């Protein structure tokens, strides 16, 4: 499923549609969005390098990590960044977001360190994070520099929207993101969000702006203040649930879930067993089974409902409750049930019905409600 996210971003935008956008959000209880973000960046960038994606370049807008963090990340994934710096550019909003260093350098003996050669060739320091318009222009300018005009598209990664929201109102951040989505040279974009730093409405605004939402949740809910939580807490520090919501053009929504495991080397996605396991947590504990097993589901699907055979050429028979359609059936109901259970490939199911007593009126053409006075 993590692959399907990467595929959606790689395939990019259709002509005349907005670029696909992905929100990766987490909360303090399961703070792994950065790991997922890093995973998506390295996957997308390697497909850009391989020429498999619609976009030909990647612009990383880094607020919360230094540019060298991303360069090291790609290097660790075996990507030769030095030779590929024609395809990646980093807008560095981390080193000096408010221009303090600039101001200090002007007023007293303040010597800023010069970056390593690699960092300075791929990263450009941006000093006015409070101005979303300037930020937009810088992003587009960097991207255009990468792909050199024309109709060639590029992708954008923003880490993180939280910092943008701290410096500017929601409306201008939303405008920036939606302008980016509708720009005709942008193939895809994704951003990182710590949802518990904001009101619910702010996350909702950002989710409306995105076609895919990936959210991380703790795999064990913590009940506040209990001593027994420690084990769960330890568990949550390594694992989490990963839900992805895809929104199709026509508004159809598909939700998928996976489990993520954080390891020293990176992040691992493992698929959850189908449905049953996901629902397990949601259904209250009851003594009878509410779920169907796979076989029960197949058997259920094989049952021909009374109206289903009508019109297929056979004479229409309406069951009136007194006799079975097939006369001999009621003599061996047990055998019939066994038959269903033992033979997996049996082509048809059946409805077994016993009248409780003779008091029960058989079905007839009479309208039972004809004495109703409406």
């Amino acid at each position, binding site marked *: 499923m993590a692959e399907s996210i990467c595929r959606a971003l790689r395939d990019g935008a259709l002509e005349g549609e907005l670029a696909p956008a992905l929100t990766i959000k987490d909360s303090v209880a399961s703070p792994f969005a950065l790991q997922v973000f890093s995973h998506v960046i390295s996957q997308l960038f390697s497909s850009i390098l391989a020429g498999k994606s619609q976009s030909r370049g990647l612009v990383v807008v880094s607020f919360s990590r230094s540019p*060298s963090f991303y360069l090291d990340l790609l290097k660790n994934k075996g990507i030769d960044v030095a030779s590929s710096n024609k395809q990646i550019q980093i807008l560095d909003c981390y080193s000096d977001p408010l221009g*303090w260093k600039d101001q*200090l350098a002007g007023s007293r003996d303040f010597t800023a*360190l010069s970056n390593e050669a690699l960092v300075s060739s791929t990263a450009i320091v941006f000093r006015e994070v409070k101005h979303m318009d300037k930020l937009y222009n810088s992003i587009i300018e960097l991207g255009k520099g990468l792909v050199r005009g024309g109709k060639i598209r590029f992708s954008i990664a923003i880490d993180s929207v939280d910092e943008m929201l701290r410096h500017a109102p929601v409306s201008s951040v939303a405008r920036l993101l939606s302008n980016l989505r509708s720009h005709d040279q942008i193939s895809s974009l994704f951003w990182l969000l710590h949802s*518990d730093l904001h009101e619910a409405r702010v996350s909702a605004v950002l989710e409306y702006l995105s076609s895919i939402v990936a959210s991380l949740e703790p795999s064990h809910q913590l009940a506040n*203040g209990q001593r027994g939580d420690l084990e769960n807490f330890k568990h949550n520090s390594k694992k989490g649930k990963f839900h992805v919501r895809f929104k199709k053009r026509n508004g159809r929504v598909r939700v998928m879930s996976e489990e993520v495991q954080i390891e020293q080397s990176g992040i691992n996605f493992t698929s959850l067993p189908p449905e049953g396991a996901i629902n397990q947590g949601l259904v209250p504990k009851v003594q009878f089974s509410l779920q169907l097993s796979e076989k029960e589901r197949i058997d259920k699907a094989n049952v021909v409902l009374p109206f289903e055979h009508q019109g297929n050429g056979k004479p229409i028979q309406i069951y009136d409750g007194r006799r079975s359609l097939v006369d001999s059936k009621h003599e061996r109901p047990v055998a019939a049930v066994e038959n269903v259970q033992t033979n997996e490939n049996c082509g048809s199911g059946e409805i077994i019905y016993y009248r409780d007593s003779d008091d029960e009126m058989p079905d007839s053409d009479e309208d039972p409600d004809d004495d109703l006075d409406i």
Partner: protein
Amino acid sequence: MNQRSSNLLDEALGLDQVIEPWPLRGRVVAIEDQVETSGSFVLHHLLKCSLSPNSSNVTIFIAFSEPFSHYDRILRKLGCNLVSQRDNSRFFFFDMLKLQCPDGDEGITPEGGLIALYGKIHKTISALPEICWRNVSIIIDDLSLMEVAANGSSDYVLDFLHYCRTLTSEFDCSLITLNHEDIYSSEDRPTFFIQMEYLADILIKAEPLATGLATDVHGQLTVSNKGRNKVSNFHFKVKENVVECFYPGRSRG
């Protein structure tokens, strides 16, 4: 002092094996305490470790809560002389008790307030020989009083902390902060507090025992080390010149 080998706190922080090079370099450490259980002893402990004679660490201490003499007295009990360390240029003490940032947005100028403080820290580090940079610890005691000095503007404090964080990636030094958990109400979003938890690579929580005060156990510490993917939890007792840490139920009292 054979305390080092048995100290669970050191173990959780990775300080038990080597302290040269400084294991916390490039990391942000956030200590959170509550009104019943002060976490300042963790700060003193880290200060003592970083000034230990086996290491060449340099500490920059930004004090909003107590004067120099207070820390000097405590550290002396722990076997560390701050005055001589200060004379050796291994301990830089910035007394910020009287800091009052100018009001309003126009007050945020390089001449005053937190920008100037950041400039001072930056200048101190860059004046050190390059080989020392990665052994510098910046300690802030404490963030809530810094917020008071900044006229309650938590955004300004977060900006300052962001710049301090850039120091950790620029010089590979470490940043250690103390903050109080219970002064942020749970109703309106404790954004500042959560933001700190996101920033921290290592989070140390000091909490009272759920069962209340006890003579043999003063509280419990939970250390979550994001880098090493490890969470440890243990009880502690603060003694006159040492802190005892032990697993629940192993108190020697």
